[in-house]
């Protein structure tokens, strides 16, 4: 596609920004526990579900992953960090509840209390 106006450039930029989300994002983070315990409990499927949901909704957030934090009983653990807010840890996450966490908490800022296992400043 040839660029003829500043608007055309903007459209290409939007797509380019989506593709670069891992590097350029708005500061919100979703973190999945990917230790052995997490993976055994299904973290890979949860991760895939998160990536699909984030891709579908075109969110500019960082998806990160971490090792075991010692709460193996409650894996899969997913943390949501919104800039300037408390770090919320969800436990026993399944791919089915991923869309709820993303729409209610990540997008709208309402914590999904029933799955919360920890809150950190």
């Amino acid at each position, binding site marked *: 596609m040839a660029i003829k106006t500043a608007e055309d450039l903007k459209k290409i930029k939007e797509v380019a920004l*989506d593709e670069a989300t*891992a590097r350029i994002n708005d500061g919100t983070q979703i973190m999945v526990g*990917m230790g052995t315990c997490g993976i055994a409990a299904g973290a890979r499927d949860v991760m895939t579900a998160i990536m699909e949901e984030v891709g579908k909704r075109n969110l500019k957030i960082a998806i*990160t992953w971490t090792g075991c934090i010692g709460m193996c009983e409650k894996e899969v653990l997913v943390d949501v960090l919104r800039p300037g807010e408390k770090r919320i840890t969800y436990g026993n996450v399944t791919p089915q509840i991923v869309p709820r966490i993303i729409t209610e908490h990540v997008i709208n800022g309402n914590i999904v209390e029933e799955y919360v296992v920890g809150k950190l400043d």
Partner: protein
Amino acid sequence: MQIYRGHVLICAGTGCVASGSKKVQAEMANQLEAFNLENDIKIVETGCHGFCEMGPIVIVYPEGIFYCQVKMEDVKEIVEEHLLKGRPVKRLLFRDQMTEEMVPHYRDIDFYKKQNRIVLGNCGFINPENIKEYIARDGYEALAKALTQMTPEQVIDEVKASGLRGRGGGGFPTGLKWQFARDAKGDKKYVICNADEGDPGAFMDRSVLEGDPHALIEGMAIAAYAIGSDEGYIYVRAEYPLAIKRLQIAIAQAHELGLLGKDIFGSGFNFKLNIKEGAGAFVCGEETALIASIEGRRGEPRVRPPFPANKGLWGKPSNVNNVETFANVPRIIAKGSQWYAGMGTEKSKGTKVFALTGKVKNTGLAEVTMGLTLREIIFEIGGGIIDDKKFKAVQIGGPSGGCIPEQLLDLPIDYDSLISAGAMMGSGGLVVMDEDTCMVELARFFLNFTQMESCGKCTPCREGTKIMLDILERITKGEGKEGDIELLESLAKTIKSTSLCGLGQTAPNPVLATLRYFRDEYEAHIKEKRCPAGVCTALASYSILEDKCIGCTACARVCPVNAISGEVKKPHKIDPAKCIKCGACAQACKFNAIVKK
């Protein structure tokens, strides 16, 4: 759209490629596949990060974890531990040289903390072979703004107000240069980029070409619009094959998107960009020689005036700027001259990229705000001197510049302060020297370079530098005479004032600067036949310390000319008449009993 949760940035700048980053990249692709992560993690090939000392460099986003000196064998561990399980591989993290502490994040490393990366902002962060990555970082927005919202005069006024000065070394105000080209009469005008980076030890322009080629293209297009040109040339040396390849890709991609070619942004402005590969002659960095070379003639300078702004390429008005200068332009147009003029000193605005080399711990590229001191660059960004030896001087501006001694390290760097110290900004090469450097030998080295690169057109440069070089060679061989220093000074003065171009006019600078700050070293060579740094072989003498020698005979056995004699278990002696000063004895001695003076 496919999204990737992680990006693995692998440096593909010349430095990292030389230390093996291509193998690391191939192995990374294999391992991602082996762990089924190829749809989760994307590999991004980037340009130079500037921290070449630590290459190959691999950075993992979103966290920004910085791995250095990564080898092929390390890749599996990074994939399995970090990319799969989220545990960064600690042994590959950068370690602070002072505290030995691990520094996992890019932004926290001392080398980067003091920098202000504007020109290098995209280098190492984007894939230079994908125009979309440049666009994601606001690329080509400045060109859109200039073409659709500004008149050429407004563009020139903005560049003037920013205070940008030529980054190739001369420091001429860029906006004014553009004004001259705009005011020149002519139906056809050219914009030329001088990418003939020839100073020994300088590689900042190469890194921009390799790491962010679109910044140059955008800057040149804006310049063309401002002066009323529709065609440009990038003169880049053939020794930069990777830079040429990336430029070719970048130009093709910009054409495809209509950002080069006809009627750009529907404004009626046309711009065509050509690459001219130079053969690597140092003199072709001089603008009139460069223009002659583009025209297919021998690369020789001519008398100015007329200046290229009036009579340049093919006799048409032309504007020549260097890579770094052009790369600053899109940022100035996008963010405004006020933002740019807010950085730096009174007469030198913005930032300057320096290539830090020599006896410094962190070699690499450092972009700093004008006005930072050399001490901050060498000791804080550069990490100090290798093996914690004593700092002696730093050569700034390559063979056209001069050396700055220890007592001037707190000088805030800008164009004018360096001139008054007897050096010059040059293109920004910083060669750091420790106590083991002989300043006479240093002057000889640089003069040897300019003498060989002299094009031979004018007599003062061709003959004068040769005579100066002969004198310096004599001095380093211990054959210096009374009056040599004065002769050097008088030759230097004549060459500076009568040479045709910048090459000859600046060639004596290394001699004058070393004479200014290290005259005693010249005198020691000439009068006492002694090299204080112990570098000049002809002046060195080896002797054995009797109290340390235990008579092991190791030295006598390695001496190729049998100059060492003595009985076993008794101190040995060196016969200075036979000694060829090869130093083999000093290396063989396990008791530090042999000293060089």
